[in-house]
């Protein structure tokens, strides 16, 4: 226990110790960036909270309050899973401190447990923020008595454990597969991301199977009854969460005590299995990761010349994909954004909503555009960590006898390629699933491309202004860095603009039920024009102002 607490304390100190100055000698204002993003996102936060509040009112009327809690806890866990699983694998299995920790005279299980708890504490912040959005408005809507808010706090603390513990167990076969593909360059990253995609796919399939979006007003009584049974069955299937949810809406004190006890026992058993089994194979697994067999790679001794920008991109891409951490972060968006989009469009299809396709198609296409822009761009780690990922090799860029503009272009182009691929896939998926006309899909790709170039430039620019160098795990550099935070804000504004323009042109659909022939083409023309202007301005700002930022960075 002593070893565990010492290791945990050190890990937390390393993570949360505030750096007063950044690599460029400027005052570290990451907290300010958090506040700005938070304030800017307030309208969205309010919108989500309001929707959850209304859902709470509906659930209360339908008599499925506990089930509602269950789904919200599951949604909270989905967010933790989304943000935490890659962090967990990176912290536990791919961290550079492993070589330092393994020779210490402490039990492997202590190292493993300390790292797992460290990830949990890190993710708890996400859990708490998500809870404020989901559980609190819901509790207000269902008139939860005051003492249950205290129980809510306990639930908020306990709930994020489930995805992390399940992730820890799933990581064992995952790491075995990765170990098998180790030193196979890009294949390792692709296998890793595909497995993660499978995990998310299964999760969303589960949620989709047991839930459905139904317009409440249009439901006949029989259908509503079936829906309530479906919601009820689905909630009970997620037993640990259902038990936790019951403690938030107990019929009696004994039910509260029993549910809480069962929930705690289930979580404890899961923790016992996760830590017990994982720590048994932990040493072997990480040691396999540390092995560097002298494996010759099939590369030509002399390579074709591709010019300075090309050579910089080639070297960057190789380094990106030969590192499972970075490769995963980079490819993650390519897998996860289309998966979520597919499930979203399935849920909002005409059959589910009982609406006319002519009414729904343009709305869904704009919705898909806005969603993909936000998700696809904000998860583009190759842009938000363009300079951060150089880490201790940043000096190489500074000593090279080349014009900085070449370095900047190489960074923008490489990052832009990944997000462009995600966005084009998303446009095709959205086009197929909404049965959109091909020219609108092309227009969508055009809007994506312009916004992508503009946003990628800004993301690279912001990362250059405050890069996080000298990290031990890529997670430290990639997550919560100012560029990632500011990128969220930019992408959010972009999403609002797209929805706003869409809303203006598609408004007649909601009032008179039809659109004039020019409305959709005009909407896409305006979107294309605005994106083009945005691209030109962002790119110019980046190209003109980056040199001095680069020169200021000292390592």
């Amino acid at each position: 226990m002593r070893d565990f607490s010492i290791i945990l304390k050190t890990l937390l100190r390393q993570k949360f110790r505030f750096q007063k100055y950044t690599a460029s000698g400027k005052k570290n204002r990451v907290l300010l960036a958090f506040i700005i993003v938070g304030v800017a996102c307030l309208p969205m936060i309010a919108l989500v909270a309001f929707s959850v509040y209304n859902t709470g009112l509906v659930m209360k009327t339908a008599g499925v309050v506990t089930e509602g809690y269950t789904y919200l806890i599951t949604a909270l866990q989905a967010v933790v899973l989304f943000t935490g699983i890659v962090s967990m694998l990176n912290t536990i299995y791919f961290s550079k401190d492993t070589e330092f920790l393994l020779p210490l005279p402490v039990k492997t299980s202590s190292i493993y447990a300390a790292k797992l708890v460290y990830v949990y504490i890190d993710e708890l912040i996400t859990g708490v923020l998500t809870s404020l959005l989901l559980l609190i408005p819901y509790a207000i809507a269902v008139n939860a008595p005051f003492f249950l808010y205290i129980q809510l706090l306990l639930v908020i603390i306990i709930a994020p454990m489930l995805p992390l513990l399940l992730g820890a167990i799933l990581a064992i076969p995952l790491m075995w597969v990765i170990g098998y593909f180790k030193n196979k360059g890009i294949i390792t990253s692709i296998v890793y991301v595909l497995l993660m995609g499978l995990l998310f796919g299964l999760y969303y399939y589960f949620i989709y199977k047991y839930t459905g979006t139904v317009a409440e007003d249009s439901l006949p009584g029989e259908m509503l009854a079936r829906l309530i049974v479906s919601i009820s069955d689905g909630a009970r299937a997620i037993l640990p969460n259902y038990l936790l949810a019951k403690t938030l809406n107990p019929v009696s004190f004994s039910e509260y005590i029993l549910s809480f006890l069962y929930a705690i026992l289930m979580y404890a058993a899961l923790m016992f299995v996760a830590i017990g089994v994982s720590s048994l194979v932990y040493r072997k697994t990480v040691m396999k990761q540390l092995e560097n067999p002298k494996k010759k790679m099939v590369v030509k001794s002399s390579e074709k010349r591709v010019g300075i920008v090309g050579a910089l991109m080639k070297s960057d891409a190789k380094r990106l994909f030969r590192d499972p951490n970075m490769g995963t972060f980079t490819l993650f968006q390519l897998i996860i954004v289309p998966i979520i989009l597919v499930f979203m469009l399935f849920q909002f299809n005409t059959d589910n909503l009982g609406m006319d396709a002519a009414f729904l198609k343009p709305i869904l296409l704009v919705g898909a555009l806005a969603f993909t822009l936000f998700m696809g761009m904000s998860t583009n780690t190759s842009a938000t960590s363009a300079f951060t990922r150089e880490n201790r090799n940043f000096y190489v860029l500074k000593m090279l006898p080349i014009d900085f503009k070449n370095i900047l272009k190489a960074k923008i182009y490489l990052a832009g390629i990944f997000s462009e691929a995600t966005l084009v896939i998303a446009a095709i998926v959205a086009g197929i699933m909404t049965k959109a006309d091909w020219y609108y899909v092309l227009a969508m790709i055009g809007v994506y491309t312009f916004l992508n170039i503009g946003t990628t430039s800004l993301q690279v620019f912001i990362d250059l202004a405050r890069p996080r160098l000298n990290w031990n795990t890529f997670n430290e550099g990639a997550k919560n860095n100012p560029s990632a935070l500011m990128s969220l804000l930019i992408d959010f504004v972009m999403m609002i603009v797209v929805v706003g323009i869409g809303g203006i042109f598609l408004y007649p659909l909601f009032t008179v039920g039809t659109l004039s022939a020019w409305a959709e083409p005009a909407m896409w023309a305006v979107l294309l024009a605005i994106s083009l202007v945005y691209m030109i301005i962002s790119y110019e700002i980046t190209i003109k102002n980056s040199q001095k930022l680069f020169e200021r960075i000292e390592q």
Partner: protein
Amino acid sequence: MLKIENVSKSYAKSPVKAVDGLNLEVRDGEIFGFLGPNGAGKSTTIKMITGILNSDSGDIEINGISLKKDPIKAKMTIGYVPDEHNTYDKLTGNEYLNFIGEMYDVPQKTLEERKAKYLKLFHLDENANEQIKSYSHGMKQKILVIAALIHEPKLWILDEPLTGLDPESAFELKKLMREQADNGNTVFFSSHVIDVVEKVCDRVAIINHGKLIAVDTLANLKKDKTVSLEKIFLDITNENNIETVYGSKL
């Protein structure tokens, strides 16, 4: 030729200057040793010469080219071996050298010839297609040495270059340094291993607290032939002894 003129450098918000008004001239064809205790300002100076750090004041000229006015042209003539072995370790040795060759605009044919020559010299030819992360400490050092030589620089800067090298490679490196100097190039060499500095260098500078304390040939520094450079170094860097050794601070 390397000329450092009144160069100073402070780090963010630190009241103490890491390098304080440094003036130094290193001639063509000489191996110049740069000595100093930990934290004296050696690495900061070297990073300023290589363009990794900017100086707060003063200028650095490399072969008559101002690093401030024309950094790209100046950097073209520098080869740098860093003290830490941080490099693109996900690339193979070959890929890294190809990358550096392209950055320094070395013609393809010449690059291939030089790669073959140096990889063989440092016994890395067998490992050239392995990722650098699988290299030992010494092998990483060797690939960095080769990368610094691949464009045949006029000024070769080595920061603690012998760390981790096996005796044979250390010998080859010292021989290469001499060859470079004999060809009219400049070798700027920082080390803690005073014995090596004593054997290899033509002139030596000693820096402490960011200020130059002594710069001279070994013969002139060693007024008393029986005293080792190590003793001189220890005496000079001990502030109380400076005046005893030199009469006054430089």
